[in-house]
């Protein structure tokens, strides 16, 4: 598959086959850590790094591993990359590492990663595979960010709070109080039910947009003049 178009890979990862909104994979971190933007961003970047790295590695060894043992081999690779990410976060963003807690090691079990390794990376050459991992990761990250922003704004009335956990001291001032200082917070958005509600609404929104695009394309196609229009007559009238 040397002709794999990078544009198509990007489109698949970011929109058409988005892991969060279409494949509905990796819902556990998607729902559990999206209480604020900083959590969502942290876990999203970690997942993206693991995804791109493991896709590259899987693609490199794809001809050397037999079919029977491919899944254990992939899981080992993914676990190695997850451990690297975990150690990196421990070193550079220790507070965020503590907040995200168990969800960083749990990246190993994220179905998006094993799914892409098996469905794409093990059948494609390294460059498209890395690109696919990067794009799928970005799609996942964007969904995490969207859910995190909505839940943070509705749930606690802030936006970009605690960003210094990820970007250092300069980011302390980034916090925006969307509804002013007196907003008391709408707890259900922060609690687990809020994650399900927001994720469901986002999926609905994506479907609406897709339906609009489809309609638009159909309308454009039917407007194109049809050359050589003929009435076809047969002997039978149904």
């Amino acid at each position, binding site marked *: 598959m040397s002709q794999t178009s990078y544009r198509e890979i990007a489109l698949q990862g970011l929109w058409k086959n988005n892991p969060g909104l279409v494949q509905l994979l990796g819902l556990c971190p998607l729902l559990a850590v999206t209480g604020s933007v900083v959590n969502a961003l942290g876990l999203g970047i970690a997942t993206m790094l693991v995804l791109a790295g493991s896709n590259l590695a899987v693609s490199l060894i794809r001809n050397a591993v037999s079919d029977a043992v491919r899944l254990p081999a992939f899981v080992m690779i993914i676990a190695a990359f997850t451990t690297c990410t975990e150690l990196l976060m421990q070193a550079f963003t220790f507070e965020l590492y503590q907040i995200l807690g168990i969800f960083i090691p749990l990246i190993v079990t994220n179905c998006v990663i094993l799914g892409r390794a098996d469905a794409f990376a093990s059948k494609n050459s390294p460059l498209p595979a890395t690109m696919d991992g990067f794009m799928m990761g970005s799609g996942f990250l964007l969904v995490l960010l969207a859910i995190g922003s909505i839940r943070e704004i509705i749930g606690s009335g802030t936006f970009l709070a605690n960003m210094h956990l990820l970007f250092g001291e300069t980011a302390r001032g980034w916090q925006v109080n969307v509804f002013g200082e007196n907003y*008391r917070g*709408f*707890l*259900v958005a922060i*609690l687990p*039910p809020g994650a399900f*509600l927001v994720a469901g609404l986002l999926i609905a929104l994506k479907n609406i947009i897709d339906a609009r695009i489809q309609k638009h394309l159909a309308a454009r196609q039917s407007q194109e003049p049809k050359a050589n229009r003929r009435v076809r007559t047969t002997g039978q009238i149904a």
Partner: protein
Amino acid sequence: MAFIRVSSPHAHSANTTAGVMRQVLLATLPGLAALTAYFGPGTLINVILACLAAVVFEATVLKMRQRPVVFYLRDCSALVTAVLLGLALPPYCPWWVVIVGMFFAIVVAKQLYGGLGYNPFNPAMVGYVVLLISFPLEMSQWATPRGALADGQSLPNLMDALAKVFGEADIDGYSSATPLDTLRQSGGQTLNDLYSSAPIFTSGRWAGGGWEWVNIAFLLGGAYLLYKKVFTWHAPVAMLASLGILAIALYDSGSSNSAGSPIFHWLSGATMLGAFFIVTDPVTSAVSNKGRLIYGAGVGILVFVIRTWGNYPDAVAFAVLLMNFAAPFIDYYTVPRTYGHNKAPRATAKKTE
């Protein structure tokens, strides 16, 4: 002579959706009157606000879903949801609490699932639970009933009440622990001590001033609906029976560990409102008579468990939602025997090896 052949059913009932809903609305009036009499005009304001919000939300969503607005509004189901939520909310809660609750009841719990008849969860209870977990402070402040007020305190008049609902006025002067809270925080007192010391109990006869009459009023409304055959007796009786049996079992002869008498559980909190207006919801409960018995009993057990060992002010909403989850499962195992057949078929046939 010409005989017109008509196939069954031959008995026609005049019950329409709108007719049933109107009767339910009528049956809530005694309860509403009792709440207003004992707690002041707060509940009345809740109900009116909720009704307005219900009509606006329902009409907006129906319009967006391209459904006939007037046709669906006329069946009054949104108003029933609104009245039930309005009755369940604490009097004098801020106006936005009511609006947010109605948004979740009508838009999320009812219309997003497909409108009347398609909602798996009771909309009023979804609205209530969303509010309860989101705004614990507002939702746990109940007004003090008339009779249990301290000297010099009085219930707010209409203008004060409106100022509280729409302004930032503080409710602290009017609020106190409900009988359920008082019992939970009794701190080692026996029931007899509690009944003779706490003002909320001394002002009442069986289960706390005001509350007992509110529940009796809802019982009356429920009895009217039962008489009108709007629902069958199975679910409410099963709920009250299981609640009562558990209360007897853990009564512990009124010691400090007692979970309260059956009368106390029947006549406090939202028991009667739940038993006759929530548990009997035709959409979200089980459909067969046997299923309704199981469904009602489940609600009763959960109410007792959550009231006794939980931390929330009341348990009816959680109990009903949990049993709503179970209703399709109950239906699966309680398919009634069809006339002429020996055994009830399973909803889906089991594969024979």
